């Protein structure tokens, strides 16, 4: 089986598994919406203030929702032993990891990106700001999944793994958060926001290049 074929098979398999447990997918989206709804309740519904903090709140909520879904990336396969089976195939483990994190992004990052405009409207964001929000989430969430896959693999089966995962991954997420919400805030402030989007894309390229390889190394450690 060629690497590309294997990659596609992994994506199809993980999407199928995710579809069989649709409830899990909803949890992330519902969490995202709930966190975003709590802020106006806590801070007050003044439209100007909401439009000002909207991009940041939506980005933080997206990061937390992503973090919530991260343990799912390897944990189920690790517990039922299929991760071990996937590792002994002749294709490199990084291809397998790349497939899994693509499927993870399709099941977490993409739903978030699709629901985000609705919340953006509730926060009173303008049209071009909403478009930038979608673009920044589309560029940023794959980076979150890729960086998160390293953290998820490192904490596989470790004591207090989920708490540790947050400690490992959140500092690494900081640049994505800053550029992602920065792009939206720049457009809201009348600037172009292209600089931040380009940087997000650059970070995405670098992460996609390195993360599957490092995460595969970490996955092998957990299985050995």
């Amino acid at each position, binding site marked *: 089986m060629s690497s590309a074929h294997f990659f596609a098979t992994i994506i199809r398999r993980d999407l199928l598994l995710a579809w069989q447990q649709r409830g899990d997918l909803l949890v992330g989206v519902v969490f995202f919406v709930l966190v975003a709804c709590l802020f106006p309740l806590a801070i007050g519904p003044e439209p100007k203030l909401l439009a000002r903090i909207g991009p940041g709140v939506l980005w933080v909520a997206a990061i937390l929702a992503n973090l919530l879904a991260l343990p799912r990336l390897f944990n189920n396969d690790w517990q039922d032993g299929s991760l071990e089976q996937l590792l002994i195939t002749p294709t490199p483990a990084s291809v397998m990891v790349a497939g899994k994190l693509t499927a993870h992004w399709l099941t977490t990052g993409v739903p978030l990106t699709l629901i985000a405009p609705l919340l953006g409207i509730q926060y009173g964001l303008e049209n071009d700001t909403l478009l930038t929000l979608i673009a920044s989430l589309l560029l940023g969430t794959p980076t979150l999944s890729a*960086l998160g896959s390293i953290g998820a693999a490192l904490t596989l089966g470790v004591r207090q793994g989920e708490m540790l995962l947050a400690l490992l991954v959140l500092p690494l997420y*900081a640049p994505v958060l800053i550029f992602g919400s920065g792009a939206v805030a720049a457009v809201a402030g009348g600037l172009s926001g292209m600089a931040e989007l380009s940087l997000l894309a650059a970070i995405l390229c670098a992460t996609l290049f390195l993360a599957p390889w490092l995460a595969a190394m970490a996955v092998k450690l957990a299985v050995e």
Partner: protein
Amino acid sequence: MKPPHSPRWLNLFSFASPMQFYPLAGRLIPLFMALAILLCAAGFWIGFAIAPGDAQQGEGYRIIFLHVPTSWMAMFIYVVMAFWSVMHLILRTRLSAMMAQALAPTGALMAFLSLFTGALWGKPMWGTWWVWDARLTSMLLLFFLYLGFIALTRSIDEPDRADKAGSVLAIVGVFNVPVIYFSVKWWNTLHQGASISMEKGSSMASTMLVAMLLMSLAAWMYSIASCLSRVRTLILQREGYTRWVKERIAQGEK
């Protein structure tokens, strides 16, 4: 089979073996500790007795002699940690990973001291303990990276997995440190307008500079000494089952 000819003093790799390194580290620790104390004493004396007060900040600026060296070390130690992690993954030497793990607590301490002295300095000079300035925020995130590394390596029981997992994390982190630094810098300049510039090194009197360099060297020597003593403990923990450790303990040596 005889190994290929190489003079004993050239073969640095022989110290990659914990058994060879343990006594060497033991001999080096007092040396580096003594250097640290001497340099620190000299730095304190020049910094607190000889150097003049600052034109704008009066006497309060003197915390710089603790603040700048600890900040430098906090950043530098992470790079060294990443270096040993790369060495561990490439050369598969156990000692490299132990070095990385021995460095992490010192690095975390330096990052904490840098933040703490910075807050002490910030309160009288800027009127606030904390601002979301680029340097402060990235140092805080660096502190969290250290804590994550320590927590990860300490919560994995198998030494081999702990070593490799820590190495992977340190490498990911070292790529992220510059990214974090620049992202925070950008974020700051775009939205708040930097009201505080910490760059005033050029206007520094030469005695101040000397004191700061002496203190930096002292911090460096202290870091080496504490790292070596921690690596010795790690070696004893890991190699407790081996004959050479048992023999040393039987002979009553430390």
